[in-house]
């Protein structure tokens, strides 16, 4: 399905229409998607967008994705932009293709273009329907040779401009339906290779030996320690140490048994229990923020005029991607030909560039092929694995399959940054809010860049000498509350270890979202109760955006929200139960959530029992995949809110498996996730991959307060922390 027929495809070029779309001899369409879908169904949504513009049934639009050899770099899976930006570009390409096909049909049929109508891939004259021709007859098997206007930007921002008028949303026929996902049968029946299954002729197996103390480098190793395993090559390049063997189990054993002398380094980390003291006292590498509507001076003045100040501090831990399979890749290094990378990374174009960078090749010398693998949820260890594999393949001159072991996946994947947030509100004598300040102090959002195209941003790149290039960036709450003086600021602190750190930070699903909005939306509740206002009413009074108000109202109504101005502390025996609301925006998408939780007063265990989610991401393209994406976000966010915390001692990360990094178990899943989709037919779709993750932590914290009267300001909400509050 990678070509439109037997004709040779013009070279991939972002200016060429053929880089994005083609028509097969049977009149179906192929769209070449420079992103990919990792199981949330974005590809089906994109197929529906293309189908809508081409007037084809969705099942006749095939999506070829995630391969730098067949698609232009549209940024991979990133920032919930699959449908929003990636789909929009292909929708425009489809509209352009339809315009061209109609022009071709006008010539072919000898009728005016404006007399032509398109239905199901057939173009016919309105004046004489017997005059008709199909897409397949017009161009099937050949490539479009026209150009299309693009904005000159690769990656997420890539945009295409069509000369055609896009379809009127009122006439959409394919949006709003739920054609099935295409990847599901292979994943259930086990009938197709995932990245873990890729085998190439002559392939060797690699493993790494990573330092027991973060920052240590291998000084020497004892070949005698693995002489009982035949045919093992040890690869030692600067700080990188790996083994390669013909049989996978031999590589596993060699990595396990190899005796290594490590450099003596001073342990880099503070004690885990002191991390909340470390952050407030740490020096500041960079400050920033959004002034909203006042300068720092004006804000200080506004606070001076307040008669009452409410303030609170919230803490969020390091968290891990903890993907189901630790980092894996296959690389076939060909210094004089085309090097190939097979990867489960969500950014295969960039990951291929990263492999080119470490190997000293040009980007076009490396083909990055995405094969379905473990969910990445952002910048996980897939790109690290790709570069590690490239180093091993170059060292042995053969294709290598490298896979991390579980402890390496948990220990060494890039982490979600730990943070502390201090929020203050100033009130006048009538309890009106006159000043509002949100301040974050945190590790870097991008100590390693999520694009993973440069060795500086790669664990194994750093271990072989690349200098880290931290981005020093952070963010602000995303909501529409209007207060007379409002400001949001941040300080980024230095990493605990600058080089090759297992606590280097990068993107994890909804980067910064769960921590920032845990703080901002918990604080909104605190202020509402402090002035005796129902938390839903408070949000409706202060949110300044109609779509925001609509999701808040919809979630409250659907959940049967009962107004209250103080924690009701309702009980069933030893179980306290309560309700909490939180809402947020994310890049144009709005989500409001009501959580119902139970708190076992004896054990301190929190159960996120019921979630009601009102979701507005513009026009709804595929209700089923959207709903299931939201359900997945709620469950993953609940896991992070109640269980997940990367533990470490002063030498290294100690969360190294599923026992020491707990995630949600089926016995802890919610009883229900009730989703209300607000469909805005006239509004282009924004992202849905992450937005519903954002308000969950605060909704749960607010519900815990409502159930128990305990305001929990440190995530995750473990039994120990709940019991400490109850004591």
């Amino acid at each position: 399905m990678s070509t439109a027929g037997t004709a040779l495809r013009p070279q991939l070029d972002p200016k060429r229409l053929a880089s994005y779309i083609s028509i097969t001899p049977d009149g179906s369409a192929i769209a070449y998607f420079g992103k990919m879908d990792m199981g949330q169904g974005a590809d089906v949504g994109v197929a529906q967008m293309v189908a809508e513009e081409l007037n084809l049934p969705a099942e006749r639009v095939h999506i070829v994705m995630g391969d730098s050899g067949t698609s232009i770099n549209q940024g991979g899976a990133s920032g919930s932009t699959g449908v929003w930006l990636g789909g929009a570009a292909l929708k425009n390409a489809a509209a352009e293709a339809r315009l061209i096909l109609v022009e071709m049909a006008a010539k072919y049929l000898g009728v005016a273009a404006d007399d032509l109508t398109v239905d199901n891939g057939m173009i016919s004259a309105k004046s004489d329907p017997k005059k008709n021709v199909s897409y397949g007859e017009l161009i099937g098997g050949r490539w479009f040779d026209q150009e299309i206007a693009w904005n000159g930007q690769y990656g997420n921002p890539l945009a295409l401009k069509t000369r055609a008028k896009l379809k009127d949303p009122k006439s959409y026929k394919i949006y709003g339906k739920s054609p099935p996902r295409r990847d599901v049968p292979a994943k259930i029946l086990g009938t197709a290779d995932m990245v873990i299954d890729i085998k190439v002729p002559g392939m060797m197996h690699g493993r790494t030996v990573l330092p027991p103390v973060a920052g240590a480098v291998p000084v020497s190793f004892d070949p005698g320690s693995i002489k009982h395993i035949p045919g093992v090559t040890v690869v030692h390049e600067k700080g990188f140490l790996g083994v390669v063997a013909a049989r996978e189990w031999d590589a596993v054993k060699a990595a396990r048994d190899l005796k290594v002398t490590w450099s003596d380094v001073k342990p880099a980390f503070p004690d885990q229990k002191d991390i909340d003291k470390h952050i407030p006292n740490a020096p500041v590498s960079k400050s920033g923020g959004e002034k909203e509507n006042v300068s720092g001076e004006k804000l200080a003045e506004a606070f001076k005029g307040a008669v009452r100040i409410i303030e609170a501090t919230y803490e969020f831990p390091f968290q891990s991607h903890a993907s189901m399979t630790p980092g894996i890749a296959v690389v076939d290094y060909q210094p004089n030909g085309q090097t190939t990378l097979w990867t489960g990374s969500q950014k295969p174009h960039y990951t291929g560039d990263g492999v080119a960078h470490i190997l000293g090749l040009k980007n076009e010398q490396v083909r990055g092929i995405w094969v379905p693998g473990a969910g990445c949820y952002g910048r996980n260890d897939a790109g690290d694995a790709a570069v590690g594999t490239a180093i091993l393949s170059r060292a042995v001159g053969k294709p290598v399959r490298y896979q991390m072991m579980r402890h390496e996946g948990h220990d060494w994947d890039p982490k979600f940054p730990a943070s502390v947030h201090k929020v203050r509100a100033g009130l006048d004598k009538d309890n009106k809010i006159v000043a509002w300040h949100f301040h974050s102090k945190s590790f870097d959002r991008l100590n390693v860049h999520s694009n993973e195209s440069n060795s500086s941003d790669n664990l194994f790149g750093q271990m072989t000498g690349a200098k880290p290039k931290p981005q020093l960036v952070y963010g602000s709450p995303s909501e529409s509350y209007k207060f007379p003086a409002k400001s949001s600021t941040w300080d980024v602190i230095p990493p605990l270890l600058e080089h090759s750190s297992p606590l280097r930070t990068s993107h994890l699903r909804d980067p910064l979202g769960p921590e920032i909005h845990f703080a901002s939306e918990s604080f909104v509740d605190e202020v509402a109760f402090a002035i005796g206002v129902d938390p839903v009413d408070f949000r409706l009074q202060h949110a300044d955006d109609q779509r925001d108000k609509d999701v808040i109202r919809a979630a409250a109504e659907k959940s049967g929200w009962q107004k209250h101005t103080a924690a009701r502390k309702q009980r069933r025996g030893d179980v306290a139960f309560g309700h909490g609301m939180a809402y947020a925006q994310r890049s144009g998408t709005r989500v409001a959530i009501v959580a119902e939780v139970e708190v076992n007063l004896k054990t301190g265990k929190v159960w996120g029992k019921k979630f009601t989610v009102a979701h507005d991401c513009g026009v709804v393209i595929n209700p089923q995949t959207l709903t299931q994406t939201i359900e997945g976000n709620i469950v993953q966010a609940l896991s992070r809110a109640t269980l997940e915390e990367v533990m470490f001692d002063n030498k290294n990360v100690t969360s190294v498996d599923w026992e020491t990094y707990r995630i949600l178990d089926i016995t802890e899943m919610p009883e229900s996730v009730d989703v209300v989709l607000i469909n805005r037919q006239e509004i282009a779709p924004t992202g849905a991959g992450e937005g519903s993750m954002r308000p969950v932590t605060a909704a749960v914290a607010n519900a815990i307060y409502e159930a128990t009267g305990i305001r929990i300001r440190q995530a995750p909400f473990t039994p120990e922390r709940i019991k400490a509050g109850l004591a």
Partner: protein
Amino acid sequence: MAKIALNVDGKSHSIEADPDMPLLYALRDDLGLRNPKFGCGLAQCGACTVIIDGEATRSCVTPVDSVQKNKIVTLAGLGGGKAHKLQEAFLAEQVPQCGMCMNGWIMTAAAFLEKNPKPSEAQFKEALTGIKCRCGTHMSILRALMRAAQA
């Protein structure tokens, strides 16, 4: 290295392997099967599950030498040539996101259903405790499990 005999999905195989090697590596590397996945190598996630003489077993910690006389069933052989009712249910509910955990859920649930054909939701959850899904598809998983139990 030793000669190891394996009976997998009704077929007999003979391989040369280290007797201590986990069965998972034999299934994946020597027999070329793709359904049992490597997830942890620690029997903590379920991705490698096979059914050995009716018991859901984590092949990542099972020495290959120890199962020479047993009948091993993988996902490929679960339905005896057609989709098992659990697979039908997981298809109907469009369950997976990344899909890496699916083998663990389906194989563990299949062994459980053989002994408990009509479990309640609570019994099913208890039987599957410990199986991991990182994408958080638990709502869909439970719908599919109950669909299969009622089929």
